[in-house]
């Protein structure tokens, strides 16, 4: 099967609409296809990665813990737009730590999350074959 570069662009907050949850479902299913997968979080999408989420008061499923499984699915390129974070008064410390183990580097634990500028993100988008916007 051909390998393509897939980029999932997450633009919406985790709750308020189902886009974030159903985007993550595509990413997890897509992982079985052994494609080169990258995730980007921009605009309100950065809220999806916030630490210590608790959705019990709105009686909807808190799916944030599922992001921690991405490393096991070889999804370890996660880009968060710096401008979107700053505009919302957030920094990397506000995001949940997401890591993966690099088998080519003695299984060293590495950060999956990279904070990038909007210009850098534009370059990353430019390199992709398939863009999915959620």
């Amino acid at each position, binding site marked *: 099967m051909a390998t393509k570069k897939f980029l999932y662009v997450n633009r919406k907050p985790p709750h308020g609409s189902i886009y974030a949850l*159903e985007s993550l*479902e*595509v990413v997890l*299913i*897509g992982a079985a296809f052994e*494609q080169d997968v990258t995730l980007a979080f921009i605009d309100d999408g950065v809220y999806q990665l916030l630490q210590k989420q608790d959705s019990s008061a709105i009686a909807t499923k808190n799916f944030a813990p599922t992001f921690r499984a991405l490393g096991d699915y070889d999804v370890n390129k996660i880009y968060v737009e710096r401008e979107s974070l700053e505009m919302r008064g957030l920094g990397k410390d506000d995001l949940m730590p997401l890591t993966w183990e690099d088998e080519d580097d003695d299984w060293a634990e590495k950060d999956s999350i990279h904070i990038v500028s909007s210009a850098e993100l534009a370059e990353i988008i430019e390199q992709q074959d398939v863009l*999915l916007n*959620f």
Partner: protein
Amino acid sequence: MKFSILINEGPYTHQASDSAYHFTEAALRAGHEIVRVFFYHDGVYNGTRLSVPPQDDRNVSERWSALGQEHSLELILCVAAAQRRGMLDEDEARRAGKDSNNIAPGFEISGLGQLVDAGIQADRLIVFGD
């Protein structure tokens, strides 16, 4: 060129499905190939056969069915998205113990893998959403 189409919004509230229909129709007319049309999120509602719009308005799901039949298009509704929104074919209705089904002719229910595969097979995956 080979296109795949992803539709993320339902009929009537958003223009996404209309734009996708016009794009698909124009692409076929220009001699391009449509690998698959995949309906996700509220987009699965485009596949209902129970919609009754006013007579002077377009019928979104009938229009998709007709285009699908004319060009042997794969019109795929995501199974997970469809189930949680009450879009069931005969098999799914029986399996879930429901008394009815509501899928329009030409639409099929299948898995999200069909969306990823559509991205792999096509030269371009075009996303229509909000």
